[in-house]
């Protein structure tokens, strides 16, 4: 179980003549990912979703709030003491082409972390080779053909599977997959998504999925908790199927409206939401962060920032003064 409360992070850019510029990346984010559970962070680039993923994986510090891994708060611990906790959380990066050392065979890539693991747990000789074959089988690769290969001899989808296998060598409790399928060929994406779902079910590994494509988040599991992040704030939160079917925050609705419609196979939603303008750095911080772009902003939106809450008739949490269901997503022709 991994929980975060009030996670806050501000990046300070080295200043110009006017002094330092501060960029708030996360503004008090709460989350909880249970053992074997899954969550997805979605939002545009720059919304803070990757920063949050890196904080959870122990690759980035936070300014305020607390991360607790299996009940142990991380900030009181020294860096060395944190390591065994954060080792339970492994990151799968976006680009499987740069995540593997091109001069090492797949065996060598897996052997290094396994040797470390063997030392820690006092495993006999021979265990490393056995385990290397085992983790490759777990990700759907044939150890006999893959172990002696170099990364350039494998397709993008196979490389991403190797990256996942490498993460599994240290017996993690959670995988953090940051845009893990966006560089994979379309015909193979579902295979990687199905693998992550399968690892959840078979090994009880939790999966945190970070993406800008909401549709992919469904494939990790319909019970998956969806966090829609906008400018460092969670603006809507609930089970992925609920939010896709009935989003109430105009930002979530904008994200869903932007997904291409397969005309001929689907018809578009009746009330697509298009933001008034693009995301810009100089947009106002006062009140609702989405207000400058929101087509539905009303009284009070720019005065005080709405916080995540549950209101009458809306099952999921949302941070909007005027939540309303709108038909934004495309439906198959066959349903009509």
């Amino acid at each position, binding site marked *: 179980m991994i929980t975060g409360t009030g996670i806050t992070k501000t990046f300070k850019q080295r200043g110009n003549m006017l002094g330092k510029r501060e960029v708030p990346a996360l503004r008090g984010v709460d989350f909880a990912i249970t053992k074997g559970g899954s969550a997805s962070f979605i939002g545009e*680039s720059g919304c803070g979703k990757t920063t949050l993923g890196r904080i959870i994986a122990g690759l980035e510090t936070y300014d305020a709030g607390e991360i607790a891994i299996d009940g142990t708060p991380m900030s009181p611990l020294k860096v060395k003491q944190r390591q065994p906790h954060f080792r339970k959380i492994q990151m799968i990066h976006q680009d499987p082409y740069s995540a593997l050392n091109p001069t090492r065979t797949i065996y060598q890539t897996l052997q290094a972390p396994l040797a470390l693991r063997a030392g820690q747990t006092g495993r006999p000789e021979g265990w490393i080779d056995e385990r290397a074959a085992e983790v490759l089988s777990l990700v759907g690769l044939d150890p006999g053909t893959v172990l002696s290969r170099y990364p350039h001899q494998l397709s993008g989808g196979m490389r991403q599977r190797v990256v996942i296998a490498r993460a599994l060598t240290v017996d993690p409790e959670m995988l953090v997959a940051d845009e893990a399928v966006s560089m994979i060929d379309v015909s193979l994406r579902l295979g990687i998504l199905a693998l992550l779902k399968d690892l959840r079910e078979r090994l009880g590994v939790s999966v945190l999925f970070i993406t800008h*494509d909401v549709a992919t988040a469904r*494939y990790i599991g319909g019970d998956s908790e969806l966090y829609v992040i906008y400018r460092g704030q969670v603006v809507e939160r609930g089970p992925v199927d609920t939010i896709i079917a009935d989003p109430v925050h105009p930002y979530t609705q904008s994200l869903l409206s932007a997904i291409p419609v397969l005309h*001929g196979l689907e018809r578009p939603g009746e009330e697509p939401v298009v933001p008034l303008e693009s995301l810009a750095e100089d947009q106002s911080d006062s009140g609702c962060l989405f207000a400058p772009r929101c087509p539905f902003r009303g009284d009070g939106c720019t005065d005080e920032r709405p916080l995540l809450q549950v209101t009458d008739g809306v099952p999921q949490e949302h941070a909007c003064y005027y939540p309303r269901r709108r038909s934004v997503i495309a439906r198959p022709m066959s349903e009509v």
Partner: protein
Amino acid sequence: MADQAPGVRIDGLTVVYKTPAGELPAVRGISLTLEPGTITGIVGESGSGKSTLALSLLNAVQPPGRIAAGSVEIDGLGDVVGLAGEQLRKARGAHIGYVFQAAQNSLNPLKTVGKQLLDLGRSHGVEDLPGLVREARELLGRMGLDGARVLDSHQHELSGGMRQRVGIMLALVLNAHLVVLDEPTTALDMITQANILKIVREVHAERGLTTLVITHDIGVVAEVADRLAVMYGGRLVEQGPTREVLGAPRHPYTRGLIKAIPRLVGDIDEARALPGRPPTLATVPKEGCVFRERCPQRMDVCDTVDPSVVADGARVVACHAVTVKEHAS
């Protein structure tokens, strides 16, 4: 050059790359017509040959690649495969605008957009440079940007979506009427992507263009293209009006590809990845159907005989299984 959308006729185009294993075809025997004023989308995975095909329109395939056979006839230009030197250089930019893959990174980081625009003008012998700047400002304004500010900016001061629009401006500013967009929205967010696709549609209609969009994403084609062509292993396996192909795909690859797209609604278990992997230059079969290794309808004939391209009205498909089924019915 006439101020109107040109038609393009690609006929029997084959492009080969020299490798240690001999010359291998990245694009093989492709025939495709772009009707004047239409948007055609070419969809393919990595290694399908889609970018090579697009470069052939500019006769810009770089060694070790070369156009080995076929022609690319463009109205007002003739066969670009026969063009060379100064003629070719003039055609690029003035007649054919090209927005490169990752246009976000194709700008010179050391020069402002405006300076690069002037370089472009000078290299094409534009005499009225103030006019060119005016035109660029108008185009940028049309795409929702502050033209003057963008021209004064370096690329690092622009967001991904803004750079993509600068790429489109540079492709159109010399008044080209044939435009090729290679992966116009890769690496952009969903909302930015939707915005760029809307701009592509509107600018296409307003300026009277013939447009070719190359992408791995069927969704992108579904949003903008009148016609859809699907490439696999260097071959064109299916083409037709976008809505008809999406609504009733015929080639097993097209069907599989559509099924493999993560969707917002529908049964998750029905969606599945295609088995196997896309072929590379080295692994693409030399004879028979290029898709057979991954095909659920594979027959004996697929191993030895290349399926011929069969036209049925506006629909074109190259598949033995489809041909057999039609003869049976």
